[in-house]
Protein backbone atom coordinates (compact mmCIF):
# COMPACT_ATOMS: atom_id res chain seq x y z
CA UNK A 1 0.00 0.00 0.00
CA UNK A 2 2.82 2.40 0.90
CA UNK A 3 4.49 1.97 -2.50
CA UNK A 4 1.19 2.62 -4.29
CA UNK A 5 0.68 5.78 -2.28
CA UNK A 6 4.23 6.89 -3.03
CA UNK A 7 3.81 6.31 -6.78
CA UNK A 8 0.51 8.22 -6.77
CA UNK A 9 1.95 11.15 -4.84
CA UNK A 10 4.97 11.32 -7.16
CA UNK A 11 2.53 11.37 -10.09
CA UNK A 12 0.53 14.17 -8.48
CA UNK A 13 3.73 16.12 -7.74
CA UNK A 14 4.86 15.81 -11.37
CA UNK A 15 1.38 16.86 -12.55
CA UNK A 16 1.62 19.94 -10.32
CA UNK A 17 5.21 20.78 -11.19
CA UNK A 18 4.83 20.71 -15.01
CA UNK A 19 2.32 23.59 -15.30
CA UNK A 20 4.24 25.66 -12.70
CA UNK A 21 7.46 25.28 -14.70
CA UNK A 22 5.52 26.15 -17.86
CA UNK A 23 4.10 29.26 -16.22
CA UNK A 24 7.64 30.21 -15.17
CA UNK A 25 8.86 29.69 -18.78
CA UNK A 26 11.26 26.94 -17.66
CA UNK A 27 9.73 24.28 -19.93
CA UNK A 28 7.68 24.65 -23.11
CA UNK A 29 3.99 23.93 -23.47
CA UNK A 30 4.70 20.81 -25.55
CA UNK A 31 7.23 19.55 -22.95
CA UNK A 32 4.58 20.13 -20.31
CA UNK A 33 2.15 17.93 -22.22
CA UNK A 34 4.63 15.05 -21.95
CA UNK A 35 5.22 15.74 -18.25
CA UNK A 36 1.47 15.65 -17.65
CA UNK A 37 1.10 12.28 -19.38
CA UNK A 38 3.83 10.81 -17.13
CA UNK A 39 2.16 12.32 -14.06
CA UNK A 40 -1.26 11.00 -15.08
CA UNK A 41 0.00 7.45 -15.67
CA UNK A 42 1.83 7.38 -12.31
CA UNK A 43 -1.20 8.82 -10.49
CA UNK A 44 -3.62 6.22 -11.79
CA UNK A 45 -1.16 3.33 -11.31
CA UNK A 46 -0.66 4.29 -7.66
CA UNK A 47 -4.04 5.75 -6.75
CA UNK A 48 -6.18 2.94 -8.15
CA UNK A 49 -5.11 0.35 -5.55
CA UNK A 50 -4.66 3.04 -2.88
CA UNK A 51 -7.93 5.02 -3.11
CA UNK A 52 -9.99 2.43 -4.97
CA UNK A 53 -10.38 0.29 -1.86
CA UNK A 54 -11.83 3.05 0.27
CA UNK A 55 -15.44 2.74 1.36
CA UNK A 56 -17.90 4.83 -0.61
CA UNK A 57 -19.15 7.97 1.13
CA UNK A 58 -22.75 9.24 1.38
CA UNK A 59 -21.91 12.03 -1.08
CA UNK A 60 -20.83 9.50 -3.74
CA UNK A 61 -24.44 8.72 -4.56
CA UNK A 62 -25.35 12.38 -5.03
CA UNK A 63 -25.44 14.28 -8.31
CA UNK A 64 -22.77 16.93 -8.75
CA UNK A 65 -22.95 20.28 -10.50
Amino acid sequence: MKINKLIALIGLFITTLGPILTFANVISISQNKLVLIIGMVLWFIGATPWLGREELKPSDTEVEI
Partner: protein
Amino acid sequence: MSQVNEYEREPIPEHAQKGPKSFWGMYAGEHTAGTEFMIGPLFLAAGASIQDLILGLLLGNILAVLTWRYLVVPIAMSKRLTLYYQLERIAGSGAVKLYNIVNGLLFCFLAGAMITVSASAVGIPFNIMYTTPEATFGLGAPSFTVIVLLVGAVITIVASRGYDQVARFANIAAPWMIIIFIACGLVSLTQMNANSVSALAEGDFWANAVAFVQEHNGAQSFPFWQIVVFAWLCNGAMHFGMADLSIFRFARSKSSGWAPAIGMFLGHYVAWICAALLLAAQIKLSQDATANPGALAWNALGWTGMVCVVIAGWTTANPTIYRAGLAFQGMVPGSKRTTMTLVAGIVATIAGAFPNLSGQLLGFVGTYGTVLGPMGAVIFVDFWLMKKIGLQDEYATVTGASFNFTVLFAWLLPVGVGLWLIFQQGIFAAYVVIPCWIASAILYPLVSQFTQKKVAA
Protein backbone atom coordinates in the same frame (compact mmCIF):
# COMPACT_ATOMS: atom_id res chain seq x y z
CA MET B 1 -21.08 0.55 0.27
CA SER B 2 -22.45 -0.15 3.74
CA GLN B 3 -23.32 3.35 4.93
CA VAL B 4 -24.35 4.57 1.49
CA ASN B 5 -27.42 2.38 1.28
CA GLU B 6 -28.21 1.98 4.97
CA TYR B 7 -30.51 4.06 7.14
CA GLU B 8 -32.79 5.09 4.27
CA ARG B 9 -35.85 5.09 6.51
CA GLU B 10 -34.45 5.63 10.00
CA PRO B 11 -32.39 8.29 11.77
CA ILE B 12 -28.62 7.84 11.63
CA PRO B 13 -27.53 6.15 14.88
CA GLU B 14 -24.74 7.70 16.93
CA HIS B 15 -22.13 5.10 15.98
CA ALA B 16 -22.56 5.87 12.26
CA GLN B 17 -22.15 9.62 12.63
CA LYS B 18 -19.03 11.26 11.23
CA GLY B 19 -16.79 14.08 12.42
CA PRO B 20 -16.05 17.31 10.51
CA LYS B 21 -12.84 15.87 9.00
CA SER B 22 -14.88 13.28 7.06
CA PHE B 23 -17.04 16.02 5.58
CA TRP B 24 -14.08 18.11 4.48
CA GLY B 25 -12.68 15.02 2.75
CA MET B 26 -16.09 14.20 1.32
CA TYR B 27 -16.66 17.64 -0.20
CA ALA B 28 -13.07 18.14 -1.42
CA GLY B 29 -13.72 16.03 -4.50
CA GLU B 30 -17.31 17.19 -5.01
CA HIS B 31 -18.20 20.02 -7.35
CA THR B 32 -15.10 19.60 -9.51
CA ALA B 33 -17.15 17.92 -12.19
CA GLY B 34 -17.69 17.83 -15.93
CA THR B 35 -20.10 20.77 -15.66
CA GLU B 36 -17.18 23.02 -14.69
CA PHE B 37 -15.64 22.65 -18.17
CA MET B 38 -18.89 24.04 -19.65
CA ILE B 39 -19.84 26.67 -17.07
CA GLY B 40 -16.42 28.40 -16.79
CA PRO B 41 -16.15 29.35 -20.49
CA LEU B 42 -19.81 30.44 -20.53
CA PHE B 43 -18.97 33.29 -18.10
CA LEU B 44 -16.47 34.68 -20.57
CA ALA B 45 -18.81 34.10 -23.50
CA ALA B 46 -21.54 35.99 -21.60
CA GLY B 47 -19.28 39.02 -21.17
CA ALA B 48 -18.34 38.88 -17.46
CA SER B 49 -15.35 41.06 -16.51
CA ILE B 50 -12.48 39.33 -14.69
CA GLN B 51 -12.86 41.60 -11.62
CA ASP B 52 -16.59 40.87 -11.38
CA LEU B 53 -15.92 37.17 -11.84
CA ILE B 54 -13.26 36.96 -9.11
CA LEU B 55 -15.23 39.00 -6.56
CA GLY B 56 -18.70 37.82 -7.58
CA LEU B 57 -17.79 34.14 -7.33
CA LEU B 58 -16.11 34.80 -3.97
CA LEU B 59 -19.22 36.40 -2.49
CA GLY B 60 -21.65 33.96 -4.13
CA ASN B 61 -19.74 30.94 -2.84
CA ILE B 62 -19.56 32.39 0.68
CA LEU B 63 -23.36 32.83 0.61
CA ALA B 64 -23.77 29.24 -0.62
CA VAL B 65 -21.64 27.89 2.23
CA LEU B 66 -23.59 29.97 4.78
CA THR B 67 -26.83 28.54 3.37
CA TRP B 68 -25.59 24.99 3.81
CA ARG B 69 -24.36 25.71 7.32
CA TYR B 70 -27.41 27.56 8.67
CA LEU B 71 -30.29 26.22 6.58
CA VAL B 72 -29.48 22.56 5.99
CA VAL B 73 -27.28 21.42 8.87
CA PRO B 74 -29.59 22.26 11.84
CA ILE B 75 -32.48 20.28 10.30
CA ALA B 76 -30.21 17.47 9.09
CA MET B 77 -28.70 17.01 12.56
CA SER B 78 -32.01 17.22 14.34
CA LYS B 79 -33.96 14.78 12.15
CA ARG B 80 -31.07 12.71 10.70
CA LEU B 81 -33.26 11.54 7.80
CA THR B 82 -32.79 11.55 4.02
CA LEU B 83 -34.50 14.27 2.00
CA TYR B 84 -36.81 11.67 0.48
CA TYR B 85 -37.96 10.12 3.74
CA GLN B 86 -38.45 13.53 5.34
CA LEU B 87 -40.51 14.66 2.35
CA GLU B 88 -42.52 11.46 2.50
CA ARG B 89 -43.41 12.18 6.14
CA ILE B 90 -44.59 15.68 5.22
CA ALA B 91 -46.02 15.28 1.71
CA GLY B 92 -46.78 11.55 1.37
CA SER B 93 -45.24 8.78 -0.70
CA GLY B 94 -47.17 9.74 -3.86
CA ALA B 95 -45.90 13.31 -3.72
CA VAL B 96 -42.34 12.04 -3.30
CA LYS B 97 -42.76 9.93 -6.44
CA LEU B 98 -43.85 13.03 -8.35
CA TYR B 99 -40.91 15.01 -6.95
CA ASN B 100 -38.64 12.12 -7.94
CA ILE B 101 -39.84 11.98 -11.53
CA VAL B 102 -39.33 15.74 -11.96
CA ASN B 103 -35.88 15.29 -10.45
CA GLY B 104 -35.21 12.37 -12.81
CA LEU B 105 -36.13 14.36 -15.92
CA LEU B 106 -33.87 17.23 -14.85
CA PHE B 107 -31.09 14.72 -14.21
CA CYS B 108 -31.49 13.40 -17.78
CA PHE B 109 -30.84 16.88 -19.16
CA LEU B 110 -27.78 17.30 -16.93
CA ALA B 111 -26.45 13.86 -17.90
CA GLY B 112 -27.07 14.74 -21.56
CA ALA B 113 -24.88 17.82 -21.22
CA MET B 114 -22.16 15.66 -19.68
CA ILE B 115 -22.39 13.16 -22.53
CA THR B 116 -21.86 16.09 -24.92
CA VAL B 117 -18.83 17.17 -22.86
CA SER B 118 -17.28 13.68 -22.96
CA ALA B 119 -18.06 13.30 -26.68
CA SER B 120 -16.37 16.64 -27.42
CA ALA B 121 -13.13 15.12 -26.10
CA VAL B 122 -13.57 11.63 -27.60
CA GLY B 123 -13.96 13.23 -31.05
CA ILE B 124 -10.62 15.09 -30.87
CA PRO B 125 -8.31 12.20 -31.96
CA PHE B 126 -10.63 11.56 -34.91
CA ASN B 127 -10.74 15.25 -35.81
CA ILE B 128 -14.49 15.23 -35.20
CA MET B 129 -15.43 18.62 -33.80
CA TYR B 130 -18.27 19.78 -31.66
CA THR B 131 -20.12 22.51 -33.52
CA THR B 132 -23.20 24.34 -32.31
CA PRO B 133 -26.05 24.63 -34.80
CA GLU B 134 -28.28 27.72 -34.69
CA ALA B 135 -31.48 25.97 -33.60
CA THR B 136 -31.74 24.87 -29.96
CA PHE B 137 -32.83 21.42 -31.11
CA GLY B 138 -30.43 21.25 -34.06
CA LEU B 139 -28.00 18.35 -34.32
CA GLY B 140 -24.25 18.80 -34.68
CA ALA B 141 -22.25 17.22 -37.52
CA PRO B 142 -23.41 13.62 -38.26
CA SER B 143 -20.01 12.25 -37.16
CA PHE B 144 -20.31 14.12 -33.85
CA THR B 145 -23.83 12.78 -33.33
CA VAL B 146 -22.48 9.24 -33.84
CA ILE B 147 -19.81 9.87 -31.16
CA VAL B 148 -22.51 11.19 -28.78
CA LEU B 149 -24.58 8.04 -29.35
CA LEU B 150 -21.57 5.79 -28.72
CA VAL B 151 -20.48 7.66 -25.59
CA GLY B 152 -24.08 7.73 -24.34
CA ALA B 153 -24.43 3.98 -24.94
CA VAL B 154 -21.26 3.16 -23.00
CA ILE B 155 -22.16 5.46 -20.07
CA THR B 156 -25.72 4.08 -19.97
CA ILE B 157 -24.64 0.44 -19.97
CA VAL B 158 -22.10 1.09 -17.20
CA ALA B 159 -24.71 3.02 -15.15
CA SER B 160 -27.23 0.20 -15.57
CA ARG B 161 -24.76 -2.10 -13.80
CA GLY B 162 -24.76 0.22 -10.73
CA TYR B 163 -22.88 3.35 -9.75
CA ASP B 164 -20.45 1.56 -7.44
CA GLN B 165 -17.39 1.07 -9.70
CA VAL B 166 -17.66 4.47 -11.39
CA ALA B 167 -18.10 6.18 -8.01
CA ARG B 168 -14.87 4.52 -6.88
CA PHE B 169 -13.14 5.61 -10.07
CA ALA B 170 -14.46 9.17 -9.57
CA ASN B 171 -12.91 9.18 -6.09
CA ILE B 172 -9.58 8.02 -7.54
CA ALA B 173 -9.62 10.72 -10.24
CA ALA B 174 -10.84 13.61 -8.03
CA PRO B 175 -7.51 14.89 -6.60
CA TRP B 176 -5.84 14.61 -10.01
CA MET B 177 -8.72 16.40 -11.73
CA ILE B 178 -8.43 19.39 -9.39
CA ILE B 179 -4.73 19.71 -10.28
CA ILE B 180 -5.58 19.40 -13.99
CA PHE B 181 -8.07 22.28 -13.74
CA ILE B 182 -5.34 24.43 -12.15
CA ALA B 183 -2.94 23.29 -14.89
CA CYS B 184 -5.50 24.46 -17.48
CA GLY B 185 -5.42 27.93 -15.93
CA LEU B 186 -1.62 28.18 -15.65
CA VAL B 187 -0.97 26.92 -19.19
CA SER B 188 -3.71 29.14 -20.65
CA LEU B 189 -2.15 32.20 -19.01
CA THR B 190 1.22 31.16 -20.43
CA GLN B 191 -0.30 30.75 -23.90
CA MET B 192 -1.62 34.33 -23.63
CA ASN B 193 1.78 35.64 -22.38
CA ALA B 194 -0.03 36.62 -19.19
CA ASN B 195 2.46 34.88 -16.93
CA SER B 196 3.90 37.99 -15.35
CA VAL B 197 2.59 40.13 -12.52
CA SER B 198 2.14 43.18 -14.78
CA ALA B 199 0.21 41.24 -17.47
CA LEU B 200 -2.01 39.67 -14.81
CA ALA B 201 -2.65 43.06 -13.20
CA GLU B 202 -3.53 44.70 -16.53
CA GLY B 203 -5.99 41.92 -17.36
CA ASP B 204 -5.88 42.58 -21.12
CA PHE B 205 -5.84 38.84 -21.82
CA TRP B 206 -9.41 38.65 -20.49
CA ALA B 207 -10.73 41.99 -21.74
CA ASN B 208 -9.53 41.24 -25.29
CA ALA B 209 -11.23 37.84 -25.26
CA VAL B 210 -14.52 39.34 -24.03
CA ALA B 211 -14.27 42.06 -26.71
CA PHE B 212 -13.75 39.37 -29.39
CA VAL B 213 -16.81 37.39 -28.24
CA GLN B 214 -18.95 40.54 -28.07
CA GLU B 215 -17.87 41.53 -31.57
CA HIS B 216 -18.82 38.16 -33.03
CA ASN B 217 -21.83 37.14 -30.93
CA GLY B 218 -23.29 40.57 -30.16
CA ALA B 219 -23.09 42.62 -26.96
CA GLN B 220 -23.99 40.75 -23.76
CA SER B 221 -23.42 41.47 -20.10
CA PHE B 222 -23.00 39.33 -17.01
CA PRO B 223 -22.66 41.87 -14.18
CA PHE B 224 -21.37 41.43 -10.63
CA TRP B 225 -24.67 40.73 -8.87
CA GLN B 226 -25.75 38.25 -11.53
CA ILE B 227 -22.50 36.33 -10.93
CA VAL B 228 -23.08 36.47 -7.15
CA VAL B 229 -26.62 35.12 -7.48
CA PHE B 230 -25.57 32.41 -9.93
CA ALA B 231 -22.67 31.21 -7.74
CA TRP B 232 -24.93 31.23 -4.68
CA LEU B 233 -27.86 29.41 -6.26
CA CYS B 234 -26.40 27.09 -8.89
CA ASN B 235 -26.51 24.45 -6.15
CA GLY B 236 -29.87 25.73 -4.94
CA ALA B 237 -31.39 22.25 -5.12
CA MET B 238 -28.70 20.98 -2.73
CA HIS B 239 -28.93 23.73 -0.06
CA PHE B 240 -32.17 25.71 -0.43
CA GLY B 241 -33.80 22.53 -1.77
CA MET B 242 -32.36 20.48 1.14
CA ALA B 243 -31.05 17.61 -1.03
CA ASP B 244 -27.91 17.61 1.12
CA LEU B 245 -29.94 16.64 4.19
CA SER B 246 -29.08 13.14 2.96
CA ILE B 247 -25.37 13.91 3.47
CA PHE B 248 -25.44 16.06 6.62
CA ARG B 249 -27.68 13.61 8.49
CA PHE B 250 -24.37 11.84 9.21
CA ALA B 251 -22.84 14.96 10.85
CA ARG B 252 -21.77 14.70 14.48
CA SER B 253 -20.90 18.39 14.79
CA LYS B 254 -22.50 21.52 13.34
CA SER B 255 -19.08 22.70 12.20
CA SER B 256 -19.29 20.02 9.47
CA GLY B 257 -21.58 22.49 7.74
CA TRP B 258 -18.57 24.56 6.70
CA ALA B 259 -17.16 21.66 4.66
CA PRO B 260 -18.91 22.56 1.36
CA ALA B 261 -16.51 25.53 1.31
CA ILE B 262 -13.74 23.30 0.00
CA GLY B 263 -15.92 21.94 -2.82
CA MET B 264 -17.19 25.40 -3.69
CA PHE B 265 -13.82 27.13 -3.76
CA LEU B 266 -12.05 24.37 -5.67
CA GLY B 267 -14.88 23.58 -8.09
CA HIS B 268 -16.96 26.72 -8.37
CA TYR B 269 -14.10 29.17 -8.05
CA VAL B 270 -10.71 27.83 -9.12
CA ALA B 271 -12.09 25.34 -11.68
CA TRP B 272 -14.56 27.81 -13.23
CA ILE B 273 -11.95 30.55 -13.61
CA CYS B 274 -9.36 28.10 -15.00
CA ALA B 275 -11.89 26.65 -17.47
CA ALA B 276 -12.80 30.19 -18.56
CA LEU B 277 -9.11 30.93 -19.15
CA LEU B 278 -9.02 28.00 -21.60
CA LEU B 279 -11.51 29.84 -23.84
CA ALA B 280 -9.62 33.14 -23.49
CA ALA B 281 -6.43 31.38 -24.65
CA GLN B 282 -8.18 29.71 -27.58
CA ILE B 283 -9.56 33.09 -28.70
CA LYS B 284 -6.10 34.65 -28.52
CA LEU B 285 -4.41 31.76 -30.36
CA SER B 286 -6.98 30.91 -33.03
CA GLN B 287 -9.71 33.58 -32.93
CA ASP B 288 -12.25 30.85 -32.22
CA ALA B 289 -14.90 31.50 -29.54
CA THR B 290 -16.47 28.02 -29.64
CA ALA B 291 -16.73 26.66 -26.09
CA ASN B 292 -15.83 23.08 -27.02
CA PRO B 293 -14.54 21.54 -23.76
CA GLY B 294 -12.59 18.76 -25.49
CA ALA B 295 -10.79 21.09 -27.90
CA LEU B 296 -10.11 23.66 -25.17
CA ALA B 297 -8.44 21.12 -22.88
CA TRP B 298 -6.61 19.50 -25.81
CA ASN B 299 -5.09 22.83 -26.92
CA ALA B 300 -3.74 23.53 -23.44
CA LEU B 301 -2.76 20.12 -22.08
CA GLY B 302 -2.85 17.64 -24.96
CA TRP B 303 -3.80 14.03 -24.21
CA THR B 304 -4.01 14.64 -20.46
CA GLY B 305 -6.56 17.41 -20.96
CA MET B 306 -8.59 15.24 -23.28
CA VAL B 307 -8.60 12.32 -20.81
CA CYS B 308 -9.62 14.70 -18.00
CA VAL B 309 -12.62 15.99 -19.97
CA VAL B 310 -13.76 12.44 -20.78
CA ILE B 311 -13.42 11.33 -17.14
CA ALA B 312 -15.08 14.51 -15.79
CA GLY B 313 -18.07 14.14 -18.11
CA TRP B 314 -18.38 10.40 -17.58
CA THR B 315 -18.10 10.43 -13.78
CA THR B 316 -20.71 13.21 -13.59
CA ALA B 317 -23.12 11.59 -16.05
CA ASN B 318 -22.92 8.16 -14.47
CA PRO B 319 -24.50 8.79 -11.04
CA THR B 320 -26.92 11.21 -12.69
CA ILE B 321 -28.28 8.55 -15.06
CA TYR B 322 -28.31 6.02 -12.22
CA ARG B 323 -30.32 8.41 -10.03
CA ALA B 324 -32.73 9.21 -12.87
CA GLY B 325 -33.21 5.47 -13.42
CA LEU B 326 -34.13 5.00 -9.76
CA ALA B 327 -36.63 7.88 -10.03
CA PHE B 328 -38.27 6.34 -13.11
CA GLN B 329 -38.34 2.93 -11.43
CA GLY B 330 -40.32 4.46 -8.56
CA MET B 331 -42.94 5.64 -11.05
CA VAL B 332 -43.47 2.28 -12.75
CA PRO B 333 -44.40 -0.42 -10.23
CA GLY B 334 -42.71 -3.75 -10.91
CA SER B 335 -40.14 -2.30 -13.33
CA LYS B 336 -36.51 -3.31 -13.11
CA ARG B 337 -33.87 -0.77 -12.15
CA THR B 338 -31.67 -1.89 -15.04
CA THR B 339 -34.44 -1.27 -17.57
CA MET B 340 -35.30 2.13 -16.18
CA THR B 341 -31.63 3.15 -16.07
CA LEU B 342 -31.43 2.24 -19.74
CA VAL B 343 -34.52 4.41 -20.40
CA ALA B 344 -32.92 7.31 -18.48
CA GLY B 345 -29.68 6.80 -20.43
CA ILE B 346 -31.52 6.86 -23.76
CA VAL B 347 -33.31 10.11 -22.82
CA ALA B 348 -30.00 11.62 -21.68
CA THR B 349 -28.22 10.51 -24.85
CA ILE B 350 -30.93 12.07 -27.02
CA ALA B 351 -30.55 15.32 -25.03
CA GLY B 352 -26.77 15.08 -25.45
CA ALA B 353 -27.13 14.92 -29.24
CA PHE B 354 -28.28 18.56 -29.25
CA PRO B 355 -25.09 20.53 -28.54
CA ASN B 356 -26.94 23.77 -27.87
CA LEU B 357 -28.57 22.30 -24.77
CA SER B 358 -25.21 21.91 -23.03
CA GLY B 359 -24.47 25.53 -23.97
CA GLN B 360 -27.47 26.55 -21.88
CA LEU B 361 -26.09 25.10 -18.67
CA LEU B 362 -26.06 28.51 -16.91
CA GLY B 363 -29.82 28.73 -17.37
CA PHE B 364 -30.37 25.05 -16.61
CA VAL B 365 -28.79 25.01 -13.16
CA GLY B 366 -30.90 28.03 -12.17
CA THR B 367 -34.03 26.28 -13.45
CA TYR B 368 -32.99 23.15 -11.53
CA GLY B 369 -32.85 25.20 -8.30
CA THR B 370 -36.14 26.93 -9.12
CA VAL B 371 -37.98 23.63 -9.58
CA LEU B 372 -36.51 21.68 -6.65
CA GLY B 373 -35.65 24.50 -4.22
CA PRO B 374 -39.22 25.21 -3.00
CA MET B 375 -39.57 21.69 -1.56
CA GLY B 376 -36.77 22.74 0.79
CA ALA B 377 -38.96 25.64 1.91
CA VAL B 378 -41.71 23.18 2.82
CA ILE B 379 -39.26 21.13 4.90
CA PHE B 380 -37.88 24.31 6.51
CA VAL B 381 -41.34 25.59 7.51
CA ASP B 382 -42.50 22.16 8.62
CA PHE B 383 -39.50 21.87 10.93
CA TRP B 384 -39.32 25.39 12.38
CA LEU B 385 -42.83 26.85 12.16
CA MET B 386 -45.75 24.43 11.94
CA LYS B 387 -45.94 23.46 15.62
CA LYS B 388 -45.32 27.03 16.74
CA ILE B 389 -48.37 28.31 14.84
CA GLY B 390 -50.57 25.48 16.04
CA LEU B 391 -50.41 23.30 12.93
CA GLN B 392 -49.47 19.65 12.56
CA ASP B 393 -45.96 18.93 11.32
CA GLU B 394 -45.21 15.77 9.26
CA TYR B 395 -48.88 15.78 8.34
CA ALA B 396 -48.79 12.89 5.85
CA THR B 397 -47.30 10.52 8.43
CA VAL B 398 -49.91 11.44 11.01
CA THR B 399 -52.86 11.17 8.62
CA GLY B 400 -51.48 8.29 6.50
CA ALA B 401 -52.11 10.30 3.31
CA SER B 402 -50.11 9.45 0.20
CA PHE B 403 -50.64 12.95 -1.23
CA ASN B 404 -50.57 16.07 0.91
CA PHE B 405 -52.19 18.36 -1.65
CA THR B 406 -51.28 21.46 0.35
CA VAL B 407 -47.59 20.67 -0.17
CA LEU B 408 -48.16 20.07 -3.88
CA PHE B 409 -49.99 23.39 -4.18
CA ALA B 410 -47.29 25.26 -2.23
CA TRP B 411 -44.61 23.67 -4.41
CA LEU B 412 -46.14 23.71 -7.88
CA LEU B 413 -47.79 27.15 -7.91
CA PRO B 414 -44.56 29.13 -7.30
CA VAL B 415 -42.65 26.76 -9.60
CA GLY B 416 -45.22 27.29 -12.38
CA VAL B 417 -44.95 31.06 -12.04
CA GLY B 418 -41.15 30.76 -11.86
CA LEU B 419 -40.96 28.71 -15.05
CA TRP B 420 -43.25 31.21 -16.79
CA LEU B 421 -40.90 34.04 -15.75
CA ILE B 422 -37.86 32.10 -16.99
CA PHE B 423 -39.18 30.78 -20.30
CA GLN B 424 -41.78 33.37 -21.27
CA GLN B 425 -40.37 36.55 -19.77
CA GLY B 426 -36.69 35.71 -20.21
CA ILE B 427 -35.73 36.30 -16.55
CA PHE B 428 -32.32 34.86 -15.64
CA ALA B 429 -33.19 31.51 -14.03
CA ALA B 430 -31.06 31.87 -10.88
CA TYR B 431 -32.92 35.09 -10.00
CA VAL B 432 -36.15 33.12 -9.59
CA VAL B 433 -34.90 30.55 -7.03
CA ILE B 434 -35.27 32.62 -3.85
CA PRO B 435 -38.64 34.27 -4.71
CA CYS B 436 -40.08 30.79 -5.43
CA TRP B 437 -38.60 29.45 -2.18
CA ILE B 438 -40.12 32.31 -0.16
CA ALA B 439 -43.50 31.93 -1.91
CA SER B 440 -43.60 28.22 -1.01
CA ALA B 441 -42.59 29.01 2.57
CA ILE B 442 -45.54 31.41 2.86
CA LEU B 443 -48.11 29.31 0.96
CA TYR B 444 -47.52 26.05 2.83
CA PRO B 445 -48.52 27.21 6.36
CA LEU B 446 -51.09 29.66 4.99
CA VAL B 447 -53.02 27.05 3.01
CA SER B 448 -52.52 24.47 5.77
CA GLN B 449 -54.56 26.72 8.08
CA PHE B 450 -57.58 25.89 5.90
CA THR B 451 -56.81 22.35 4.78
CA GLN B 452 -55.44 20.61 7.89
CA LYS B 453 -57.95 18.66 9.91
CA LYS B 454 -57.49 18.25 13.63
CA VAL B 455 -55.56 15.09 14.33
CA ALA B 456 -55.85 13.22 17.59
CA ALA B 457 -52.59 13.52 19.50
